[in-house]
């Protein structure tokens, strides 16, 4: 299947899930950022350029489903994806816990940046008193869904990208 057809399918499926079941999966009103997670994973698996394109469209889809001004999320998500992609090499051989922490940090940063940009554009949509708490809880909750989603995003965005080659050095443990 063509890569962009895969991306389209993934985004529509994610939009349906984000606006149905994930509206209910909340702890004290704070929920999962499924589309932000797709952006992060697309940067991780697809590289900076493909990640940026996928994230842009992911942001637009999120703008549509949460009825925010069109472009707010699309402005932030590509930057997050490119940043994640640039850090990917440092994280790829790290322990699972460290990678999970990286994802949680990226989600929290995305939530905070979206709130900041929204505020600049006069959208007082976040509860500013609970914003840090929201960012942390959303980061942790979203990270819980990263493992199953990672394989799907990898299949979606890494079509045509050369597979990674693992190198072994004599005497090394890896």
């Amino acid at each position, binding site marked *: 299947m063509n890569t962009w057809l895969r991306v389209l399918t993934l985004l529509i499926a994610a939009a349906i899930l984000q606006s149905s079941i994930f509206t209910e999966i909340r702890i004290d009103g704070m929920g999962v950022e499924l589309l932000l997670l797709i952006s992060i994973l697309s940067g991780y698996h697809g590289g900076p350029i493909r990640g940026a394109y996928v994230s842009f469209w992911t942001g637009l889809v999120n703008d549509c489903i949460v*009825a925010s001004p069109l472009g707010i999320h699309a402005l932030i998500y590509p930057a997050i994806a490119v940043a994640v992609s640039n850090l990917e090499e440092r994280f790829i051989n790290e322990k699972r816990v460290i990678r999970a922490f990286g994802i949680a940090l990226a989600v929290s940063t995305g939530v905070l940046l979206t709130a900041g940009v929204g505020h600049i554009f006069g959208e007082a949509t976040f509860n500013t008193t609970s914003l840090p708490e929201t960012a942390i809880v959303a980061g942790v909750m979203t990270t819980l869904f990263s493992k199953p989603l990672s394989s799907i995003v990898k299949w979606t965005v890494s079509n045509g990208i050369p597979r990674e080659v693992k190198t072994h050095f004599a005497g090394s443990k890896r």
Partner: protein
Amino acid sequence: MAKRSSDRPRVVLLVLMAAALTLLTAQFRNFLPVDDFQQGFRDVISPFRKVADRATDPFQTVWNGIFNYEKVNEENERLQVEIARMRGEELRNEADRELLGRLLGEVDIDYLELETVVARIVGVPGGNYNSHVIEINKGTDDGLKEGAGVITKAGLVGYLHEVDRSTSLVRLATHPDFRVGVRLVNSQDEGLARGNGSPGLLILDAGINIDAEVSIGEVVVTSGGRSIFPQDIPVGRVIDPDLEADYARSIVIDLSASLENLSFLNVILDSREN
């Protein structure tokens, strides 16, 4: 060989950010196709959402059972207290009823006669972007329009922020961008109240005289006029009249409608003139 500009991540990122900013500008300049695009997308996925909602209903129930158990218990207790209170009210004598009738007459509340559409709350938008916003199961197909006032029998709730074909988003009165013209029933002073993000509270800090006589418990209603809300819809009661203010008063109003425990709402269809 030199890299093409489209192969450079920074160039791609800048182009995409410029595109996003262009879309934002188009949106804020009320370039209609942008709004229509968003509404169209939501309308297209709406049937699939309903199917996904039904299919995952057992999972949602389990989740709510685990993480909202205390909330459900509190809600049960609140409802039990409410039932007891209503039973007590039923048993009140005729004198009390007369007094109640007189008080309602003073406030001149006839908002229950407004033509409304009853809507059920289906949830909140996904993610964390929209706080103080809820989604209802009625839209343009039911005659709803953007900006229509939303009330319950207890009073003001908010207004329709986005209206799709079969669903709408309600911006609650506690939303920081919410504004409503209000009138203090005893003093007849009028001002502009706003949400400030605090649950159940409105702040009246514009248009009110520094020397206005405001008492705790005073009833506040909508003032009507050019507002999207018809006049005399109960808003709440004053809980802090800010009597010690030197320059600008900031009166705190406790909303009469409990926004935390809503199930059904009334969307006003007619916006009557004063």
